[in-house]
């Protein structure tokens, strides 16, 4: 059966077949035929104010749900504006599909108006990409794009479609199968290796789970909790993995890495076995690689074979979907209890108790700084108050900088897909548009968008989108007057020579939000904080809360670049006593 229709309509049909209910985009000359179809199509198109934010919003949608997020842009500048979001999705393995218009196929290569080599430009920004120049190739390309984006290690896929394809009429034959002979997805995990892993786990005296974004991508939190129940292993979560283990779970330590906790970094360094699940031994986590987890054997589970052994050679490599691998592992652990692995069970049990004791000591010795001040709002105070309102349940999207690290340290996430941030690329401007995507996907959820005063201004045009859609996002600006994270490095490593980091101008939040038709407010006193946040949350619509915080706070602990992660700087340098003359 087939129906005669335009390429543009075929595109919409294919998207609908993939279950797309909403997409984020910005129209232009070559996508006109598609926007004409969208005019009365069931797919809801959210008009953003910059294409970069269409990609970020699609990511927010995908990160909040696990479904593929969709964004759309016109040729030339529209497509080039998408690239930051594509790379962001690539770095964090987020499934999005980007549709771009291209100039008419006859004009390709002629430097036509708004022509850019989108296919070439986005090759390194995507997991895979397509240039569709013939109508008959269109449905296949769209379905392949969704398949590639959402399977294996997820990632962004772009489909560039020429205007003549969108305009052409043809018979739409729904695609029923996809054939990508060279696309290998490794899901099962080698049973022999999983058995070896089980054995190492049972023999270990100081085991530690190092779990990341892969747990969330694979929807494997339940399996992880079951594993922890069976083995009583302590857990650290990377920045991308926060929420995969509930913050309040007794076995959860916290985040390791450059701004991770003392306990998490000491545990990484002291462990004799790291069970690395859906992580990539990123440099922000490992610090100086040669000194990372020096006593540990490594079990590394990842769906991407190229991640296994990329930075650290594992003792037990397991390539597979971490959900399936963990459930197999759990089964093995249940069936073969640690009855007689080599060594003495009594000593091992004692060693495990000692390990837990040690971890509790580390936790108690240097918890995260949560100090408050009576006269000013400290950034940590702001995060603690947001945490109180969230209760581990709200979606929190973050921008990039100091506020991101404090939010990651101090806000609880008791479920996966609540913490949404730009981890790998660290793209400022991510917080607000990703909140738009997340709130569109989860309308019932309380969504906080936390940004710095720098990153917020990168995303400021999206206030219009928030207002247009009436999205009840609580936009919190942690306003320290500086590009705080860069200022911190200048203070610590460049003799406090503050170069181009002062943001001396910030708009009046009440007027700014008011100009878009919603409520806003600026506060600077600690006694205003709780009530102001409450007011924001109680407001049925959007709310912009600009919170002036102490400007010169630094995020600690901090692992200086090039140091081992147990070589943390725990707080500001103590003033040196000046000798009397």
């Amino acid at each position: 059966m087939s129906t005669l229709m335009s390429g543009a309509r075929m595109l919409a049909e294919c998207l609908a077949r993939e279950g797309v209910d909403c997409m984020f985009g910005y129209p232009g000359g070559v996508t006109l035929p598609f926007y004409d179809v969208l005019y009365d199509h069931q797919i809801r198109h959210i008009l953003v104010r910059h294409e970069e934010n269409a990609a970020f919003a699609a990511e927010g949608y995908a990160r909040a749900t696990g479904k593929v997020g969709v964004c759309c842009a016109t040729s030339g500048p529209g497509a080039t504006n998408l690239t930051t979001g594509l790379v962001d999705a690539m770095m964090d393995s987020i499934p999005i599909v980007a549709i771009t218009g291209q100039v008419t196929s006859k004009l390709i290569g002629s430097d036509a108006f708004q022509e850019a080599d989108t296919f070439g430009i986005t090759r390194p920004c995507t997991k895979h990409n397509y240039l569709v120049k013939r109508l008959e190739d269109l449905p296949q390309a769209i379905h392949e794009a969704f398949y590639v984006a959402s399977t294996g290690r997820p990632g962004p896929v772009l489909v560039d479609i020429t205007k003549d394809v969108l305009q052409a009429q043809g018979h739409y034959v729904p695609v029923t199968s996809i054939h990508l002979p060279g696309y290998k997805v490794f899901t099962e995990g080698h049973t022999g290796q999983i058995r070896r892993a089980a054995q190492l786990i049972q023999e270990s005296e100081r085991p530690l789970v190092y779990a990341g974004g892969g747990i969330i991508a694979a929807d494997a939190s339940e399996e992880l909790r079951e594993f922890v129940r069976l083995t009583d292993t302590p857990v650290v979560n990377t920045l991308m993995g926060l929420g995969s283990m509930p913050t309040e779970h007794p076995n959860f330590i916290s985040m390791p890495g450059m701004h991770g906790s003392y306990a998490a970094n000491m545990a990484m360094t002291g462990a004799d076995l790291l069970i690395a699940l859906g992580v990539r031994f990123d440099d922000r986590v490992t610090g100086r690689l040669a000194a990372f987890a020096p006593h540990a054997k490594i079990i590394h589970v990842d769906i991407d074979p190229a991640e296994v052994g990329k930075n650290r050679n594992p003792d037990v490599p397991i390539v597979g979907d971490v959900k399936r691998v963990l459930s197999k592992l759990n089964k093995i652990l249940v069936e073969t209890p640690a009855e007689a692995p080599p060594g003495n069970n009594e000593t091992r049990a004692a060693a495990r108790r000692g390990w837990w004791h040690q971890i509790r000591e580390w936790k108690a010795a240097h918890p995260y700084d949560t100090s408050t001040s009576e006269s000013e709002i400290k950034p940590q105070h702001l995060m603690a108050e947001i945490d109180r309102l969230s209760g581990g349940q709200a979606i929190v999207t973050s921008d990039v900088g100091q506020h991101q690290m404090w939010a990651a340290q101090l806000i609880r996430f008791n479920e996966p897909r609540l913490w949404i941030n730009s981890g790998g690329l660290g793209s400022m401007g991510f917080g607000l548009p990703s909140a738009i995507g997340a709130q569109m996907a989860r309308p019932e959820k309380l969504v906080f968008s936390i940004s710095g005063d720098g990153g917020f201004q990168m995303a400021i045009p999206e206030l219009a989108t928030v207002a247009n859609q009436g999205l009840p996002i609580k936009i919190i600006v942690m306003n320290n007057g500086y590009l705080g994270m860069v200022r911190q490095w200048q203070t610590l490593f460049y003799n406090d020579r503050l170069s181009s980091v002062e943001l001396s101008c910030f708009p009046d939040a009440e007027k700014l939000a008011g100009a878009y038709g919603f409520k806003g407010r600026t506060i600077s006193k600690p006694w205003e904080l709780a009530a102001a946040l409450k007011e924001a949350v109680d407001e049925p619509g959007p709310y912009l809360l600009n919170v002036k915080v102490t400007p010169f706070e630094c995020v600690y602990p901090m692992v200086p670049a090039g140091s081992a992660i147990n070589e943390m700087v725990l707080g500001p340098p103590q003033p040196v006593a000046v000798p009397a003359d």
Partner: protein
Amino acid sequence: MQQVISLILENKPGALMRVTGLLSQRGYNIESLTVARTLDPELSRMTIVVDVDSLQRAQVIKQMNKLINVLQANDLSEVPAVVRELVLLRIRTTQESRTAVLKEAEIFGGRVVDSSSEGFAIEVTGAPEKLGEFVDVMSAYGEVDVTRSGALAIALDSKKLRLQPPVPTVGQPHAQPAQK
């Protein structure tokens, strides 16, 4: 060290760009690269020689295998394989050394493909190191100009091409495909 990689890739637009882009993106130095159709016109075979740290060799292959248009990537430095290259060399030579030049060419198994009063054009195939020697020897007789094909390699044991089967599109979201 030099790593010889043999790739089979689909003849899709941009496939070559994906391979070369990946190499430069990951900082691998390309020593040589050749590509041409296979018996199956839908596929091409590439031979790539890269200069990589020996610890990185497995990583290069894994990254290549991740490319959707790559059906197979093999490290031929690890298996029995033949590596050959073609050189075309033009030499300007004096009347006196013509015979000596021809003699040397013969030693290297060369074939004269053009001859004029100025000199010769000579074609030699062989292992890449061997061709280096040939060029050195010839340079002693006069001004040379050289073009080399880059290495071509083939494994001596055949490795079965493992292709993924088609998957149905129905239903969203796509489940991770089952694996035997």
